[in-house]
């Protein structure tokens, strides 16, 4: 059957449309399946007995009372399960001589952080397991905790892992002088010191420890009742988890299936291979029953990996005219007690971003990773890049102060002008596209930069108790992790490609599988839009499948803003192959030469005629397979694996207006404007949502959140009472916009958006806070810049005593929500 191609109006492209999300229909009605909702018949539940001490010898574990408790199937230590020698994987040995301790499923002889598992209880119900866990009696001999990174590196320090002989995990260096990508930093500093027309500015910044705090606690169910062991897990990385489980537990990879059902957020916090997951595997194999673990929120705060926690020593050199001549970065990064899956590499991901959008002739980055007796750290939204962006954007402001320059002008003087792209940086990366002038011009206008500067002047002149600060962050990031060869050169244990398959069903509907496994990002909607355009089929006819290693067997999952930039391009490549196959069949059916066929809006037409075949008709023809070319298989289906050749480099200009009540120290974020260039926008609604959420997390680092340990090494923010996530009442509306210079490194021109808001916003806020207070003598305030810290900084700068006020470390962030400290009677009790 040949259709006559009627002159139809071209359907408007899907890409760029603010489609509401497909995935919402289930989520807004409660028709969901987060892992904890999965309980096969006969499921046993575990609860982990955790050490309350940071560092201690385990002298004995008395299980008798727990074992006799109602509903308890068994109580096990590592020895009981025969897993003492099993170590959880670290996939990123950043240097050949990196020191890596064994990270056990359960501690045997020594516990290394408060929250580490010592034994596991298996029971009929979760409640019975939890009750019995309280009855396990562990005899500890306390050891000295190791909490301070600098002290940990000092001669004679208590060692977290004595067998390693040191608390230093590794030191990693990037030196533009050595690499030949720029000058030598030593020369730049010496030259600046010798030159009266140059300045050297040194600062120390602290990246406090953060907790990812995804809303869905981690959970897994391991079901041994099939040929394959099925692991359901609240994970960002089902494919990595499958491979790593088999390597860790010595299983056959083809005997393991991992399913990530609905996953309630991750932000890097769910990329791990967890001791609890491996315990469930061991127990399911041993007991031959499904075994389930769901953590409590308090366990999650204590034992799920944390993020950030670095000390950053930054030196910048510049000519008095403002030209930056060098940047020296030295970091200490707290790994915690063990190495997470990519933990040691997290600071390294930032190494290439310290020079940011600026032309800096000499760069040296060196990072020493340190073991302490704290919860391990690993990826958290931005992973290395927020730290880098914070440091460079803060030091640019400090340099501006030193030189008496407007901080925006100083940035303009040093950034890469748009006509110089593609630009190879001092860190050796090639930025393919960008236009910092355009994003900044738009942001400055939306913000009313000049008007706010005038208001600031006025408030200063009038000694207004409420001072105004303007914070700037002009950032870039590297997204789309990552070119596999580059990862190889960084000794990462895997590649950075992504896989996709496209299946044309007999009825013309399209099934697409992706190896990028979403947990809130809206892959199903965005990828459907891409496929609808490329293949010329209705949006509704495209189904995106993911998150099950039986359905999408190949993939490297979701992190590092890679889903669209790598996974989305893999989908495009697979669609290209489908179209190429369809073209052959179309030519055959239309009795035309392939070269004479045009493909548009889902239909092949013979140039210059009205003969055509729709892609759906060709799919049906391939299905019945009665008539197709001899030199091909009767199928349109195709797989693709896409390995990017470069990162992508979104950028943007973020501006914050911060009001500070100098009498109470209260910081009020009055206005936040950002203009981001994320390349081609597939779905503006989703992009805006990603920016909002990213901003909230970055702002929370600046203002609210910190994971703190006391002198004994106990986490003092172990619940959502003490670890203060911002509520709706703590945040303003953000004024966001996008501009677009399409990426030239991929066919869609996309750059990635998942981490942008988080990376950019933290320095914008802190720069704003300091900008409001510098004229009062305040030089720096550590994050989070809570009311108390701000108030103290003002008092100290003014030479007043703060001795009467105890430092409150337990709830430092304290998003006050609707509570107005000036009008306590208006407090709303929820």
């Amino acid at each position, binding site marked *: 059957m040949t259709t006559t191609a009627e002159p139809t109006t071209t359907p408007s492209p899907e890409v760029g449309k603010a489609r509401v999300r497909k995935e919402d229909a289930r989520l807004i009605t*409660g028709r969901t399946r987060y892992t904890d909702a999965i309980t096969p018949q006969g499921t046993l539940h575990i609860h982990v007995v955790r050490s309350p001490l940071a560092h201690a010898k385990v002298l004995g574990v008395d299980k008798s009372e727990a074992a006799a408790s109602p509903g308890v199937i068994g109580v096990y230590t590592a020895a009981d399960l025969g897993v003492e020698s099993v170590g959880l994987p670290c996939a990123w040995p950043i240097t050949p001589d990196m020191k890596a301790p064994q990270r056990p499923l359960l501690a045997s002889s020594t516990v290394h952080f408060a929250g580490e598992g010592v034994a596991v209880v298996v029971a009929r119900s979760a409640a019975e397991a939890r009750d019995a866990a309280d009855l396990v009696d562990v005899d500890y001999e306390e050891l000295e905790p190791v909490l301070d990174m600098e002290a940990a590196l000092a001669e004679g320090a208590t060692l977290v892992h004595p067998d390693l002989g040191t608390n230093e995990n590794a030191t990693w260096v990037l030196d533009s002088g050595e690499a030949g990508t720029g000058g030598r930093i030593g020369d730049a500093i010496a030259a600046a010191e010798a030159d009266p027309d140059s300045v050297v500015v040194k600062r120390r910044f602290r990246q406090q420890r953060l907790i990812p705090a995804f809303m869905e606690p981690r959970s897994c169910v391991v079901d041994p009742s099939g040929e394959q062991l099925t692991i359901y897990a609240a994970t960002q990385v089902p494919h990595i988890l499958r491979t790593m489980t088999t390597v860790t537990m010595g299983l056959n990879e083809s005997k393991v299936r991992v399913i990530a059902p609905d996953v309630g*957020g991750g932000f890097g916090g769910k990329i791990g291979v967890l001791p609890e997951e491996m315990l469930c595997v061991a127990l399911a194999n041993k007991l031959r029953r499904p075994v389930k673990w769901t953590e409590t929120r308090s366990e999650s705060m204590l034992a799920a990996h944390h993020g950030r926690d670095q000390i950053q020593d930054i030196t910048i050199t510049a000519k008095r005219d403002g030209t930056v001549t060098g940047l020296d970065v030295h970091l200490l990064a707290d790994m915690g007690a063990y190495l997470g899956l990519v933990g040691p590499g997290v600071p390294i991901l930032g190494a290439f971003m310290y020079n940011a959008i600026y032309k800096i002739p000499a760069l040296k980055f060196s990072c020493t990773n340190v073991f302490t007796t704290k919860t391990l750290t690993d990826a958290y939204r931005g992973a290395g890049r927020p730290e880098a962006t914070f440091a460079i954007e803060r030091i640019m402001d400090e340099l501006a102060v030193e030189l008496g320059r407007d901080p925006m002008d100083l940035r303009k003087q040093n950034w890469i002008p748009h006509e110089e792209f593609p630009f190879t940086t001092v860190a050796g990366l090639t930025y393919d596209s960008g236009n910092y002038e355009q994003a900044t011009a738009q942001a400055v206008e939306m913000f009313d930069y000049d008007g706010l500067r005038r208001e600031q002047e006025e408030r200063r002149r009038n000694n207004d108790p409420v001072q105004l600060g303007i914070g700037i962050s002009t950032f870039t990031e590297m997204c789309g992790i990552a070119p596999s060869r580059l990862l190889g050169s960084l000794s990462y244990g895997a590649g950075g490609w992504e896989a996709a398959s496209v299946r044309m069903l007999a009825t013309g509907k399209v099934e697409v599988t992706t190896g990028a496994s979403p947990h809130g990002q809206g892959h199903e909607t965005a990828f459907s839009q891409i496929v609808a355009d490329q293949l010329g089929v209705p949006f509704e006819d495209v189904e995106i499948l993911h998150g099950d290693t039986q359905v999408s067997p190949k993939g490297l999952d979701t992190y590092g803003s890679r889903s669209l930039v790598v996974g989305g391009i893999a989908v495009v490549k697979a669609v290209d192959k489908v179209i190429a196959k369809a073209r052959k069949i179309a030519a055959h059916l239309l009795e035309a030469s392939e070269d004479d066929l045009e493909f548009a809006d889902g239909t092949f037409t013979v140039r210059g005629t009205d003969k055509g075949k729709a892609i759906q008709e060709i799919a049906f023809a391939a299905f019945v397979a009665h008539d197709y070319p001899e030199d091909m298989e009767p199928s349109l289906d195709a797989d693709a694996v896409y390995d990017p050749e470069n990162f992508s480099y979104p950028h943007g200009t973020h501006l914050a207006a911060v009001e500070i009540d100098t009498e109470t120290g209260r910081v009020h974020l009055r206005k936040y404007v950002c203009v981001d260039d994320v390349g081609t926008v597939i779905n503006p609604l989703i992009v805006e949502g990603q920016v909002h959420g*990213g901003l*909230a997390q970055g702002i929370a680092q600046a203002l609210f959140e910190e994971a703190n340990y006391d002198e004994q090494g106990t986490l003092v923010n172990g619940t959502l009472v003490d670890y203060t*996530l911002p509520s*709706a009442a703590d945040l303003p509306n953000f004024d966001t916009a996008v501009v677009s210079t399409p990426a030239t490194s991929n066919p869609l021109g996309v750059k990635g958006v998942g981490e942008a808001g988080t990376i950019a916003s933290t320095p914008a806020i802190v720069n704003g806070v300091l900008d409001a207070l510098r004229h009062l003598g305040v030089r720096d305030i550590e994050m989070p810049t809570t009311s108390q810290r701000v108030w103290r900084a003002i008092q100290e700068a003014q030479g007043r005593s703060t001795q009467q006020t105890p430092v409150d470390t337990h709830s430092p962030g304290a998003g006050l929500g609707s509570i107005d400290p000036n009008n306590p009677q208006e407090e709303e009790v929820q």
Partner: protein
Amino acid sequence: MAQVRVTVDGVNYADDVEPRTLLVHYLRERLGKTGTLVGCDTSNCGACTVHLNGQSVKSCSVLAVQADGGEVLTIEGLARDGKLHPMQEAFNEHHALQCGYCTPGMIMQAVDLLGDNPDPDEREVREGIEGNLCRCTGYQNIVRAVQSAAQKMKPGAAADTPAPASVAGGGN
């Protein structure tokens, strides 16, 4: 064991429960109402929010036995006759959710808020939902959605949208 008789999403149940059983665990584990979620153990996150006798409650801070003789509405019972509640529609329309984990609680709380205050300004919405944490959205689109639902639910706004009180029992 204690007896609990309760109506959940229009269905009557009579069960023996351990006296310490929390309402949220009863809903999830006994009734299979897994649309209501658990996000914390300190009553901070609001993921578990349902309506009990027409008022929003965090079902992790209510014992199942306290619901005895009462009427519970969860996210799964909010749509009527296959038609979404205007709040559910607004969450979809304004992209007020990403991972969806806070969403059931957030929607139930927002419906309750409009029962108390049918036309809240931005500040009132923010304060009205501050007991519900969302880690994904930055709240802006949630606020938009709630305000947009309020407009749609105004008496006379659209003939086919149910009045809030009849759906949620309001909070009054």
